[in-house]
C-alpha cells in the first residue's frame, strides 16, 4: 500500500462521514414536516396569489380557470389573483415532493395518485386539504356530484381531489361502419370478438389502440377482470383476498393477448401513440376505440373528427359469459388528483374554492364540452350531440368500478404498464405477467 494515500483516504472518509451525519440531522427535521389540521374552516394563511400548479398536458384547466377569473370569479381574482405554474405530467411526483419538503407548495396543485392517499407522502404529512369538510363549511358540498365524490374517495381513500373531470370509460364506435357491415352493438365479449373478425375481414382495424401509452391495453385487462370476477375484482387484490394469479385474472390477460394476436389492434399498435390512435378512429380507419369521455374534446373538434359527431356511438365494455360483473358497471374516474395546501387555505383561497365549486361545471361544459364532477348550475344550450348523449349516460350510471391499476402502488402501476407490451407481443405469458405483477404488489404492500 502506498503510504502517501492515507491522508486522501482519511479526507474521503471524513467527507462521507460528514455527509452521513448531516443527512441524519436532516432526517429528523424532515420527519417533522406536517400540515395544519384541515378539519375546520379556512384555518391557514392566504398566500399572495392563488397559484395553481397543473400539468403541461392539460391546457383545459388553465383556460377554464382563466375564464372564471375573468367572469364568475372576478371578485375572488381581484382579492387573490390567479396565477399558473405548470409541470410535465411525468415530473409531478418529483416536483411536488421537492416543493412540499421546502414548504413551498402552491395553494392548489396537481399530485401523484399515491401521494395524496392517507398513507402517501402528502397524506401522511397532513399536506392535503379535506375537501369534504371544507366544502361543507363553505355550504357548497352539494356542488360535487355524489358519483364523483365517491369515485375520488374510492381511489384516494379520502376526499382530497377536485373533480375537474368526471369520465366514464367505454368503447367509442363508428356507427356508419357498424351499419355497413350489419354489426349490432356487442353485448358480450364473444359478440365483440365476432364483430372484430367481421371488421378485420372488411379491411378495417377493429380497435384503434395506443400501445405506446400502455394504459389503453391494461384498461382492457382490468375491464375483462371486472366483468369476469365481479366489481370487487381489484379491491380483492388490494385487500389480499385474491391473487392476480387466480384463474379469472390470468384469463383477462390472456383475452387481451389473444385480441392482439388475432391482429385486432392493427399493425404497429405497440408503438402507436394516443394521438395517432385517436386519428385512426376519427378518420374512419379504425371502427372502435376504448377510451374515456375526455375523448369528447377531440370528437367535438371538426378539424380532427372526419367521421362526423353524429356517427359516433358509445357502449360499455361487454359482459363476459359466466362472469359475475355486469355491463352496467361503468369504469369511472375523476381526472388527476388536484389537492389544496391546508397551510395556505385561508379565507381568500376558501372564496376561490367556493366559486370554482359553484361555477366550474357550467363553464367547462359550455366552453370545452368537458363533463366534470361539479354540478352544472346554468343550462348549457346547443351541446354537441355526443356530449349530450354521454352527459345523459353519466347521469344514469348507478354503479361504477375503477381501472386496473387504480388501487396499485406506483411501482406496480409502472410494472403493469411497462410489461403489457411484452404480454401483447407474446414475449411474456399471461401467467408470468400476472405473477410478476402480484409479486410487485406483495413487495410494496
Amino acid at each position, binding site marked *: 500500500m502506498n503510504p502517501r494515500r492515507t491522508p486522501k483516504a482519511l479526507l*474521503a472518509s471524513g*467527507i*462521507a462521514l*460528514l*455527509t*452521513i451525519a*448531516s*443527512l*441524519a440531522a*436532516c*432526517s*429528523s*427535521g*424532515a*420527519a*417533522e*414536516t406536517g400540515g395544519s389540521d384541515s378539519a375546520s374552516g379556512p384555518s391557514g394563511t392566504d398566500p399572495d396569489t392563488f397559484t395553481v400548479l397543473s400539468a403541461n398536458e392539460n391546457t383545459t384547466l388553465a383556460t377554464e380557470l382563466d375564464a372564471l377569473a375573468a367572469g364568475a370569479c372576478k371578485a375572488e381574482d381581484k382579492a387573490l389573483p390567479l396565477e399558473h405554474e405548470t409541470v410535465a405530467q*411525468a*415530473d409531478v*411526483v*418529483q416536483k411536488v*415532493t*421537492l416543493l*412540499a*419538503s*421546502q414548504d413551498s407548495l402552491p395553494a392548489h396543485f396537481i399530485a401523484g395518485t399515491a401521494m395524496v392517499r392517507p398513507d402517501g*407522502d*402528502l397524506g*401522511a*404529512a397532513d399536506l392535503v386539504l379535506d375537501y369534504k369538510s371544507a366544502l361543507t363549511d363553505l355550504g357548497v358540498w352539494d356542488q360535487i356530484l355524489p358519483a364523483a365524490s365517491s369515485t375520488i374517495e374510492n381511489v384516494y381513500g379520502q376526499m382530497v381531489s377536485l373533480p375537474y373531470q368526471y369520465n366514464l370509460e367505454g368503447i367509442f364506435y363508428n356507427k356508419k361502419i357498424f351499419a355497413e357491415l350489419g354489426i349490432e352493438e356487442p353485448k358480450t365479449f364473444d359478440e365483440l370478438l365476432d364483430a372484430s373478425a367481421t371488421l378485420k375481414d372488411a379491411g378495417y382495424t377493429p380497435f384503434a389502440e395506443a400501445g405506446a401509452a400502455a394504459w389503453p391495453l391494461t384498461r382492457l385487462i382490468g375491464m375483462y377482470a371486472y366483468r369476469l370476477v365481479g366489481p370487487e375484482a381489484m379491491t380483492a387484490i388490494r385487500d389480499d383476498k385474491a391473487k392476480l394469479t387466480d384463474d379469472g385474472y390470468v384469463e383477462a390477460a390472456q383475452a387481451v393477448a389473444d385480441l392482439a394476436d388475432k391482429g385486432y389492434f*392493427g*399493425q*404497429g*399498435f*405497440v*408503438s*402507436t401513440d394516443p394521438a*395517432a390512435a385517436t386519428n*385512426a378512429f376519427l378518420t374512419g*380507419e379504425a371502427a372502435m376505440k376504448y377510451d374515456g369521455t375526455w375523448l369528447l374534446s377531440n370528437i367535438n373538434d371538426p378539424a380532427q373528427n372526419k367521421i362526423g359527431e353524429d356517427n359516433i356511438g358509445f357502449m360499455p365494455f361487454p359482459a363476459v359469459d359466466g362472469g359475475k360483473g355486469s355491463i352496467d358497471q361503468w369504469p369511472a374516474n375523476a381526472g388527476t388528483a388536484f389537492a389544496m395546501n391546508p397551510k395556505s387555505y385561508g379565507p381568500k383561497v376558501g372564496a376561490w374554492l367556493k366559486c370554482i365549486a359553484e361555477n366550474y361545471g357550467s363553464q367547462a361544459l359550455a366552453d370545452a364540452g368537458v363533463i366534470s364532477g361539479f354540478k352544472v348550475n346554468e343550462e348549457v344550450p346547443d351541446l354537441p350531440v355526443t356530449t349530450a348523449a354521454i352527459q345523459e349516460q353519466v347521469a344514469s350510471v348507478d354503479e361504477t368500478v375503477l381501472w386496473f391499476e387504480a388501487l396499485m402502488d*406506483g*411501482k406496480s402501476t*409502472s*410494472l403493469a404498464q*411497462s*410489461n403489457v*407490451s*411484452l404480454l401483447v*407481443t407474446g*414475449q*411474456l405469458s399471461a401467467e408470468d405477467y400476472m405473477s410478476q405483477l402480484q409479486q410487485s404488489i406483495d413487495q410494496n404492500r
Partner: protein
Amino acid sequence: MKRVFGDRKTIIILLAPTLVLYIALKVVPVAWSLGLSFFEGNTLRGFTFVGIDNFAKFVQDPAGIQSLWVSIIFAVLATAGQIVFGYLLALLYVFVLRKGSAFIRTAVFFPMVLPTVAVALLFKSFVAVGDNQGPVNDVLNFLGLGSVEFLASTVGTMGVALAMTWWSSMGFYAVLLYTGLLDIPDEVIESARIDGANGIRLVRHIVLPLSLPILISSIIFSFNSTLKVFDSLLALNGGGPGTTTAPLTLYMYRTAFEYAEYGYGSTIALVLTLLCLVFTLAVFRSTSKKSAEA
C-alpha cells in the same frame, strides 16, 4: 516562472478558486449521494438510516440486475462498434482518402452534433410500422418481406439503439483515432513498406501498436459514455418493451424521481460509478500489461 510555481502560496492562490468550485460542484454532490445510499426515504418523508440494506436489496432485485446487464451489454457492443468502425474510418482517411478526406470526415462527424433525443426520434420513424411506415420496412416490403415492428422486441430495440449510437458517434471516434494515426511518422510507415509490410500486416504490426495509446483512451472514453446511456434509450422506446432495454441510469431515475426513493436511487448510482471504475481499471490494466510485454 520556475520561481513562481515553486512557491507554495502561489500554487494555493492559483488553484484555490477552481478547487473550491470543483469540490462544491463535484466532490460534495458525489459524497452526498454516497451518504444517501445508506438511507431510505425522501426529502418529504424524511430519511431513515438503513445501513447497507439498500446494497443487499440491489443484489436481490431482479429489475436492478436486469438493468445492470442491459448497461453492460449495451456498453460492450456500442463500444466495440464505435471503436471498430471509427478505426476503420480513420484508416480510410489516412491511407486511402489521404488529403481528400476532409469532406467525408465532416460528413461522418456531423451526426455527433445532433441532439441524441432528435436522433432517437429519427430512428424511431425509420423503423416505424403501420400508417406512418418508415423506410426500413418499405425496403423490406420491396424485397417481398413483411413489415417488422422492431421496437416491439428486445433484440429489435437493442439493434436499433446500437445502430443509432454507432451512426451518431463513429465519426467522432474516427476523428479522434485519425489524429492518433497522423502522429505516426511517415518514415516508420515507409521503412515498414520497404521491408515488405503491406495491408493488414502493416496495420497489425506497425500502425496498431503505434496508435495504441489513443486507441485505449478512446475505448475508456467510449465505455464510460455508453455505460451512462440514458436519453437515447429513453427517447427510443422508454426502456421497453417492458423494462428489457432499461439501463441502470433509467432505473436509477425512475427509482429516485418517479417512486421518490432517493436512498435506493443513490445506491443504483453508486453501482454505476463502481461499474465505470471497474471497466476503466480493467482496460488500463490490460494495456499496461501489453505495454510491458512490448
